[in-house]
């Protein structure tokens, strides 16, 4: 029996600790598939965050560094500046990237640091049990916005792709979703393009993946998947926000 599709080689055999239906698993798989297809597992250093993906070092078979909360872009900068020929990516959640690590995120992008950032947006702090994130939608109930996020007292959600797309440094910024097979296939293309931009151009690339968090949203995996499409995508529209190739070609 010939194998047509199986778990990527750059993802370990360890069973994910993520909850049933969690988007992290899909994001891991996409990164793993891209590492396999580009044949870069042996020359890649992953920098993983604090949050639910804190133990991603158990899953990625490439070399991995575990960064402090929000500091992954700084750690990745340190690695990439020493090893410009290696592939370096950070994998970060919304609390990590868009709250405590906003400065690191923006300045790594401003420098056009030759790294790839995989940004998991599930509108909530998952690891600590479901608190309000910088990306929590207006009205969304979390442990720390028990009456629904009130933007007038708790701030408006950060749209990271839109923010970063105003900058000159990044070469490629795209937002994708992981709810439908079509969206997941598009996300895979985006992740591959992001890594390719780094490898071929030494450029900064950023892919935001809208993901489900069934447990902390208080939903079944199916309901959570559907919320990505019904609530998140309208607020966080999918698409390419910056592509240096299009800009150069005057598109």
């Amino acid at each position, binding site marked *: *029996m*010939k*194998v*047509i*599709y*199986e*778990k*990527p080689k750059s*993802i370990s055999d360890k*069973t*994910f600790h*993520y*909850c*049933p*239906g*969690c*988007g*992290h*698993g*899909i994001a*891991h*798989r996409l990164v*793993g598939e891209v590492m396999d297809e580009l044949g870069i597992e042996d020359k890649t250093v992953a920098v993983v965050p604090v949050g639910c993906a804190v133990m991603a070092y158990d899953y990625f078979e490439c070399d991995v560094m575990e960064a402090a909360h929000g500091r992954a872009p700084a750690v990745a900068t340190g690695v990439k500046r020493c090893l410009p020929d290696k592939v370096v990516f950070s994998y970060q959640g919304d609390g990590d990237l868009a709250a405590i690590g906003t400065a690191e995120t923006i300045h790594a992008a401003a420098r056009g640091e030759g790294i790839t950032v995989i940004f998991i947006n599930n509108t909530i702090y998952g690891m600590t049990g479901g608190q309000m994130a910088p990306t929590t939608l207006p009205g969304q109930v979390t442990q720390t916005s028990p009456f629904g996020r009130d933007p007038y007292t708790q701030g408006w959600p950060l749209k990271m792709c839109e923010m970063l797309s105003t900058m000159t440094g990044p070469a490629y910024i795209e937002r994708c979703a992981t709810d*439908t*097979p079509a969206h*997941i*296939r598009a996300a895979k293309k985006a992740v591959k393009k992001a890594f390719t931009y780094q490898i071929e151009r030494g450029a900064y690339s950023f892919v935001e993946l809208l993901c489900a968090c*069934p447990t902390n949203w208080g939903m*079944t*995996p*199916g309901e959570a*998947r559907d919320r990505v499409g019904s609530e998140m995508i309208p607020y966080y529209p999918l698409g390419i926000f910056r592509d240096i190739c299009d800009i150069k070609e005057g598109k």
Partner: protein
Amino acid sequence: MNTAEIDKKRCKACGLCADACPKKIITINPYAESAYGRGCAEVSDGCVGCGTCAVVCPDIAITLRSV
């Protein structure tokens, strides 16, 4: 002919594959043993190996083979 195979060490019975299956031949067996002790997806006859289940699976629990 292709077919999907569920890895019981990885499956958590989230059911996303069953929802996505265009042939509706994947079911969640709540009694089958799997990563979390019980509950696992099962593929019944009629799989065409389209791979949609593998695309949506968050646990990389699905392998596609040609029979």
